[in-house]
């Protein structure tokens, strides 16, 4: 399953928070495509993924926007 999150115009850390909140509702192996306009998200979302055990599959710029594809990892607590 692949979901999309519109984080355009949000300034960091809001794109990270929205990503976090969405990922928390998804299951391991599912994909989330996040679209953002804040260049800070290019470092913050991958950092958040590394910390929390999720994987950035792809990051690309598309028409001046940043598209980050995340594969949800196992959630351990």
């Amino acid at each position, binding site marked *: 399953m692949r979901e999309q999150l519109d984080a355009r115009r949000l*300034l960091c*850390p*809001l794109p*990270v*928070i929205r990503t976090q909140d969405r990922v928390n509702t998804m299951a391991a192996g599912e994909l989330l495509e996040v679209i953002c306009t804040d260049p800070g998200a290019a470092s913050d979302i991958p*950092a958040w993924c590394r910390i929390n055990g999720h994987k950035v599959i792809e990051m690309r710029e598309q028409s001046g926007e940043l598209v980050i594809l995340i594969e949800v990892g196992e959630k351990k*607590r």
Partner: protein
Amino acid sequence: MMQQRRALALISGGLDSLLAARVVMEQGIHVEGVNFYTGFCVEGHTHAIRKKDRARPKRNNALWVAEQLGIKLHIIDVTEQYKDVVINPKHGYGANLNPCLDCKCFMVGKAVEWIGEHGFDFIITGEVVGQRPMSQRRDTMRIVVRESQVGERLLRPLCAKNLPPTLPELEGWVDREKLYGFSGRSRKPQMALAKQFGLMDYAQPAGGCCFLTDEAYSRKLADLWESRGAREYELDDIMLLKVGRHLRPRPHFKLIIGREEGENNFLQGYQRRFPLLRMISHPGPLTLIDGEVGAEDVELAACIAARFSAGRDAGQVEMQLIDRDGSEQMLQVFPMPVAEVRLEWYL
């Protein structure tokens, strides 16, 4: 086998919270971090907008700290609930509109809720007795404990030896002897401890992590409240206070004038909320008009905005007004001479 205890560390992204979490991790405690997003956090915003700030490392320091520590970080959006802290601080403001003591009580209180929901045992902060004039004094630190209802579950590892033992110490979850007794405003003990842990690259202590400690920002927020006749705000309002030049030439409207391309792009996103002025004949700023304006006001706004354009010395310049409903109108105006842009208009 002894149960591994779990602690939640308040992570601001600065050195103290990094060290506090690390000190407790050294004792075999499972630590996760929490960072509360209030809307006033200095992290990231201006870096993302202004070109001159883009040269700085684009990193969120709280995330960076969590990664250095190898812990999870939960970033929690508290913007709505935080309004009451800013608008009605029980303990008042600091030098500007910074409600530091109420803020600390609020954040520790939110952490108390979190550990209750997630079955964690205690909370860690990087506070040091005597370090901050408002929220980190011996008496106010007691207020934080009382008002947050954290009880004995708040451990301040960097100054624990100067305070009565807390539950984690009394229960033997952590060894009090391995905690610290820092006090006062000196940063030397923290720097020495950082060196001991091999931490060389950390956010340098600066003017705090909150825009509310900034005089110019607080002035703009006070102006916003005064002009609306009510102490209230939305997230967009406080974002906009961080961007552009703010001038109030008349009591019923102000201008937000982009200082560079990045700010212009950001302001462009608000074109459905505010009438917007765009330079046509010359390179220049994008300007939002905040307030209810008539034709004379728009002309004044356009003359002022044109003063900040490349056409400032030209005779007449051409601008476009785009209203909230998307309707467009061309304007021919004379840029206001610099000497006529009054200093008191600047917020």
